[in-house]
């Protein structure tokens, strides 16, 4: 067991006007995740520490925090990879509700704005058929766990919260590329706006921090190509 120094950002809306850092010492070995350490703090040192988590296996997407300034899933990040002090803060660019808990309302609104579901006029009961090649077109973009890490990595979202952001635009691409879907025309208006794909300047950090390797930056920029095509087509339409 090694001792680790955690500096955790605390914010109590009932008493604080702004966040502050609080130091905790936690034991850990090579299997201790950042989430384990935070839960140790909550269970053994300070029961008032607020944080979100559920699956502990990088699938629910709820345990995102900033570790030394970089968005990470707490359950997929390990103390063994850190030395000296570890600073843990809530996800950047979101409003902090309490301690490490942020308000994801805007993120969820952006996700639903691009209609993230199959749109078609199919009403039969027979199964949809899809070839492996058709699946491969969008499969990579379909692995999102809605953790929001990419939004914390994106300065354009930080500068402009109206920007739809990496995950939402990736999700739009995911459905637009699905052979079972006919909803592209309904999604393009969102992507075509200045807060759609055009809000991105290809900083690219979102792809670095994505725990599921979706490469959201690539998806957003492929959406720019789609939007540019849509722009040209619109010029020839009355």
């Amino acid at each position, binding site marked *: 067991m090694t001792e680790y120094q955690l500096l955790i950002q605390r914010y109590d809306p009932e008493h604080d006007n702004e966040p502050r850092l609080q130091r905790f010492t936690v034991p850990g070995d090579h299997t201790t995740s950042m989430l384990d350490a935070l839960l140790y703090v909550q269970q053994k040192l300070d029961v008032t520490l607020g944080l979100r988590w559920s699956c502990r296996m990088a699938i629910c997407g709820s345990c995102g925090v900033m570790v030394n300034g970089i968005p990470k899933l707490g359950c997929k990040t390990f103390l063994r990879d850190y030395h000296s002090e570890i600073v843990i803060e809530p996800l950047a660019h979101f409003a902090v509700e309490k301690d490490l808990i942020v308000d994801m309302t805007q993120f969820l609104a952006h996700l639903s704005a691009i209609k993230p579901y199959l749109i078609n006029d199919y009403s039969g009961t027979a199964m949809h058929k899809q070839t492996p090649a058709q699946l491969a077109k969008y499969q990579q973009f379909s692995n999102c766990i809605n953790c929001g890490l990419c939004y914390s990595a994106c*300065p354009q979202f930080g500068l402009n919260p109206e920007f739809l952001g990496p995950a939402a635009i990736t999700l739009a691409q995911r459905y637009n590329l699905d052979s079972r879907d006919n909803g592209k025309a309904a999604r393009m208006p*969102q992507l*075509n*706006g*200045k807060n*759609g794909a*055009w809000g991105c*300047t290809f900083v690219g950090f979102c792809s670095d921090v994505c725990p599921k390797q979706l490469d959201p930056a690539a998806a957003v920029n492929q959406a720019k190509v789609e939007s*540019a095509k849509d*722009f040209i087509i619109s010029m020839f339409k009355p």
Partner: protein
Amino acid sequence: MSSPKRSDEPVWWSLFSAGGVCFAVFLPGLILALGILWPLGLLNSSVLQYAQLLSLLQSGYGLTGLAFTGAVICLPLFHAAHRIHHGLHDLKCGYSSATKLLCYGTAGLLSVLALYFTLSLLLKY
């Protein structure tokens, strides 16, 4: 939800992308030759003397000359204008439709100037 207004960014982004390709493919060689080796006297040929340069241009200018100006001056100018315009947003430095006009306007004016020089060279000889 009402749909947002269509952005005119496709126009600027296309120019930016084309300019980015030119910047990456044509400019390194050109800067190396004209900006570094020639001034240092390491490109010791007569090609870059006035008379020779003109005869070179006379032999193969025309549309090639316009394409050259477009590829090494005009498109890179729009590339630069785009990055500066978005850089103003990144740095919170007065990003607005006025700075947009200023950035792309300057790129457009300088492009026209470059094309005018090229054309006048073409017509002169």
